[in-house]
């Protein structure tokens, strides 16, 4: 029996879709069977990020409306074996789907795939409820800024209400330089507020943007820091114990500087 993990955040644009695409690809590269579910009905883009836009024929809405079998609606990835995508309908909106319908789909996928990753839309309303309805676990993505963190906190409260456990945190777009000069929160500050387990830190990486535009997930770019971070998170998801490297460049000088600028 596999796991259904919802990837969510509250705030938009923090990297849910990027994380879903890369973690899914990374898990498949590690030999796991994976299906990615785009739950952003009406604003789908996981298919674009995966470079599978041209292959999408059916969507989860067609499965719900019994226009096609679930298996037939799954799109096979072009590059790696064992990776599938269930696209969202672009012409419907989030209220056209019921949480129970999404749960039924996840329940079926769980029996066949090691990992089902559900890419949640932003917000705390119906779209989020649909995305989390069938989830066993959650990955909350945040960037290290106060508004994203407050929204993540809100989402964590809602996930805890429905007893989704564990809830793991990904800090995305982390910039050691900005932390070094005191203008970005560091890991400890974020964890102090959100108080859930950290599963990885993804640095700000310009390769993310080019990979998004090319429809080739970043994890194929071996040397890029973002790719390495996603590979490590995927390994942790499979149960491997890999320490989280300290991305913060903490020389003595910046420590002293920090002490003067941040504490008083």
């Amino acid at each position, binding site marked *: 029996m596999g796991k259904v993990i919802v990837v969510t955040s509250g705030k938009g644009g923090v990297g849910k879709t990027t994380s879903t695409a890369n973690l899914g690809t990374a898990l498949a590269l590690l030999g796991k069977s994976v299906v990615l579910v785009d739950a952003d009905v009406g604003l789908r883009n996981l298919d674009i990020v995966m470079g599978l836009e041209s292959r999408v024929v059916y969507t989860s809405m067609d499965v719900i409306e019994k226009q096609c079998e679930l298996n037939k609606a799954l799109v096979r990835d072009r590059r790696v074996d064992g990776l599938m995508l269930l696209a969202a309908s672009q012409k419907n909106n989030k209220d056209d789907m019921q949480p129970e319908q999404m749960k039924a789909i996840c329940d079926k996928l769980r029996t066949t795939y090691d990992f089902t990753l559900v890419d949640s839309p932003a917000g*705390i309303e119906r779209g989020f409820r649909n995305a989390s309805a069938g989830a066993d676990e959650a990955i909350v993505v945040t960037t290290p800024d*106060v508004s994203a*963190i*407050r*929204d993540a*906190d*809100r989402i*964590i*409260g*809602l996930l*805890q209400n429905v007893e989704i456990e564990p809830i793991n945190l990904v800090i995305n777009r982390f910039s050691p330089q900005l932390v070094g000069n005191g203008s970005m929160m560091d890991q400890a500050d974020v964890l*102090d*507020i959100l*108080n859930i387990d950290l599963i990885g830190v993804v640095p700000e990486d310009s390769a993310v943007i080019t990979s998004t535009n090319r429809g080739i997930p970043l994890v194929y770019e071996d040397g890029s820091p973002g790719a390495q971070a996603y590979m490590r998170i995927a390994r942790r998801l499979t149960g491997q114990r890999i320490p989280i490297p300290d991305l913060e460049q903490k020389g003595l000088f910046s420590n002293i500087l920090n002490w003067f600028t*941040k*504490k*008083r």
Partner: protein
Amino acid sequence: MNRSLTGATVQIDLKSPTLNDEEIDYLRSQLRENYDLIVRGVELGDDSASPPIAAAPTTHTISQTTEAPTTRDGEPSRIVPCTIRSGQMEEFPQGSLIIYGDVNSGGEVRAGGDIVVLGTLRGNACAGTNGRLSAVIIAMDLAALQLQIGNCVNRSATDQKPPGYPEIARIGPEDVIVIEKFVKF
């Protein structure tokens, strides 16, 4: 509980005369079993003892209605065993609230009496909603941008980090909320 206390002998000053022998025995056995602490003696306070907060203002009768309580005597309290996250709200109009966790930005706590946060208070706290103007807000780290006690509102002027020690907010002279280092009740 600090593990380094294991095996130590402690004196407990309950400052309240309301425990009977049975309850004291229970406390004694619990401390023994769970923390390996030996209770050597129990000192019970009496009603004439000074009120928990000597600094409780007495000059605020003007704005008080006749029913508004002036002391926390007889006020019940509620313990919240977890962090209050953004969008969550905990309200206890009957008495005081004790939070075993943080109150995060976007979260809210409202109590008829006092509010005690055994973590970081970042969200909104409103104490003394029952009109008791001696109500206080105490936090291990008081990082809230806004506090309210009764009708008095305090907005912090800066976004300075909390000083790293517990602080207490209460209504001081001229009906403004003052924040001080919290030492003890």
